[in-house]
C-alpha cells in the first residue's frame, strides 16, 4: 500500500523540479522594468509595517514607516529588540541614533539605496551579474506576491530570491541563498499596511537622533596614490568601487589601513590593504555565507571579507599586488 504513495510523491517532486527548471530567465528589458518598479515603489509608496531581519541564527525586528506627500518623503525606522537604534529620513537627509555606539556615523549613498525594502541603486549593474527568473506566487504578510530569483551569471556570488507585491511591485521579502541553496539572510515584512493613513506622530523620532554625513565614492578615482603602491588587476567581474576609507588604528600613527568597498549592486566586499602583518591565519575562513581571505605578502597583508563565495574573496585577494 505504501508504494503508490511513494510513486506519487516521487512524481510530485519530479514535477516540482521540472517546473522550477522550466522557469526561464526573463529578457533583460522586462527584468529591468521589474527591478525599477520595485525601487520606485520603495521610494514613492506610503506604508507602515514591521519587518524581520534574519541573518545566520540571529533574528531582529524593525518598525518602519514611510510617508510620501506632494513629492516630500519622510521615513522612520527603529529596531524593536536589543539596543535602541533608529533613523529618520527627510528627503535625502538622515538623522540617526545608536544606543550602543557613541560614534557619529557616515552613511554611504550606495549603501542607503539598498536598505530594505529598497533593492539596489542601479538596475543595469545588477543585471550585468545576475539574471531574473520568475519562480511563482506566494503570500507575504497577508499580501499576494510574485516570486522572482536573481540568479548569478557566474559562481562569484549567491542567488537572491525576491517577493514583489503583486499590486504595487514593493519588495515584501528578500532572501539570499548559499551555495547549497540554504537561506543565509532574509528580510521580510511580517506586517504591512499600504497607504498613508497612519498617525503622523509615528514619524517623529523617539530617541535623540543626530544628523548623519552622507558620503559617496562612486565613480571617483582611487585616493592616496593607491595605484602607485598597488598593482590592481583581474578584479572579479561585475564589482565596482563603492567607497574608500583610510583607517588609522589607535596609537599607531604611521600605520594606515586602506579599506576599499566593492559592490555588484546587491552585495559588498571589503578589501583591507595593510602595510603590516596581521594576527589572522592566512587562507580562507567562513561564517555562514560570509567568507574571509587573508593573504600575507612580504610584511604586508591583503584581507578580504564579504557575503560572497570563498572563490570571490580569494580572487579579490589575488587581484592586489604591491608594486616593487
Amino acid at each position, binding site marked *: 500500500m505504501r508504494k503508490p504513495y511513494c510513486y506519487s510523491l516521487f512524481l510530485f517532486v519530479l514535477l516540482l523540479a521540472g517546473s522550477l527548471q522550466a522557469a526561464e530567465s526573463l529578457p533583460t528589458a522586462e527584468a529591468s522594468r521589474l527591478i525599477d518598479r520595485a525601487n520606485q515603489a520603495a521610494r514613492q509608496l506610503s506604508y507602515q509595517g514591521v519587518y524581520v531581519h534574519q541573518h545566520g541564527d540571529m533574528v531582529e525586528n524593525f518598525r518602519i514607516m514611510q510617508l510620501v506627500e506632494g513629492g516630500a518623503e519622510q521615513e522612520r525606522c527603529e529596531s524593536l529588540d536589543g539596543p535602541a537604534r533608529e533613523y529618520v529620513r527627510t528627503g535625502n537627509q538622515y538623522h540617526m541614533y545608536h544606543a550602543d555606539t557613541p560614534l557619529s556615523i557616515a*552613511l554611504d549613498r550606495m*549603501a542607503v539605496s539598498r536598505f530594505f525594502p529598497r533593492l539596489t541603486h542601479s538596475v543595469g549593474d545588477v543585471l550585468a551579474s545576475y539574471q531574473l527568473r520568475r519562480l511563482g506566487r506566494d503570500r507575504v504578510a497577508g499580501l499576494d506576491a510574485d516570486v522572482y530569483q536573481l540568479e548569478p551569471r557566474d559562481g562569484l556570488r549567491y542567488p537572491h530570491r525576491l517577493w514583489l507585491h503583486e499590486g504595487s511591485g514593493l519588495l515584501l521579502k528578500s532572501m539570499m541563498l548559499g551555495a547549497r541553496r540554504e537561506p543565509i539572510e532574509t528580510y521580510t515584512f511580517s506586517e504591512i499596511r499600504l497607504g498613508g493613513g497612519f498617525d503622523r506622530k509615528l514619524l517623529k523620532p523617539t530617541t535623540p537622533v543626530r544628523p548623519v554625513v552622507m558620503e559617496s565614492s562612486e565613480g571617483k578615482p582611487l585616493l592616496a596614490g593607491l595605484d602607485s603602491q598597488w598593482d590592481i588587476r583581474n578584479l572579479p567581474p561585475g564589482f565596482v568601487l563603492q567607497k574608500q576609507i583610510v583607517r588609522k588604528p589607535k596609537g599607531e600613527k604611521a600605520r594606515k*589601513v586602506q579599506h576599499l568597498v566593492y559592490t555588484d549592486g546587491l552585495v559588498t566586499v571589503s578589501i583591507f590593504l595593510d602595510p603590516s*602583518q596581521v*594576527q589572522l591565519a592566512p587562507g580562507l575562513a567562513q561564517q555562514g555565507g560570509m567568507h574571509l581571505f587573508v593573504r600575507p605578502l612580504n610584511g604586508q597583508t591583503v584581507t578580504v571579507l564579504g557575503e560572497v563565495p570563498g572563490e570571490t574573496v580569494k580572487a579579490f585577494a589575488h587581484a592586489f599586488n604591491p608594486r616593487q
Partner: protein
Amino acid sequence: MNANNTLDEQLSALMDGELDDREASRLIGELQASPALQQAWYAWHLQQDCQAGHPLLSPDFMQQFSARLAAEPVVVAPQRLRRGRPMRKLLVPLTAAASVAFFGVALWQGVYRSATPAAQPMVAAVGQPVAAQAVAQVDVEAVRAYLSAHREAANNPLNGGEPLQTAVFKPAANQ
C-alpha cells in the same frame, strides 16, 4: 556448523525485521561483539543488495565515510528546527549557545590554512586523506575589527549582531 546456520537464519530474520525486541537486542549485542558475525551481516546485505539491484558500496565505505565526517568542519548555523521532533528540546540549548557565539563572532573556521594559500586545493580530492586538511580556528578578536569595519562601510547600520566600533586592526604579535 549447525550453530552457525542458526545464527545465519537469525541474522536474516533480524534483517527482515522478523525477530521480537528481546531476541533482536540480544543478537545485536552479539553482532557488536563478534567481527565474524559482522562479516556475515555484511555478506547478507551484499547478497540482498545484489538481488535487489542496488548499487554496491566498497567494503570499507563506512570507515572512509566516518573518517571524512570526523574531518568535516563544524557548521556554525544550526539547521532550522522542524516541528514535533523529539530532538527539539535537546537542540534548543545548543542553538542558544550558538546565538551567543554569533554575537561574539566566534567560530570563524579556517577552511584551510597554509603559508601559500594559492597552492592549496579548495576541496580535498576523493581518495586523499581528508584528515591532512587542517582546520584552523581564526582569532575571534582579530576578525571582529574587520567585520565591524565592513558592516559600518557597507550595510544598514541599524542591523545588529556587531556593535559599530572603531576598528582596531591588530598587527601580528611577533611584529
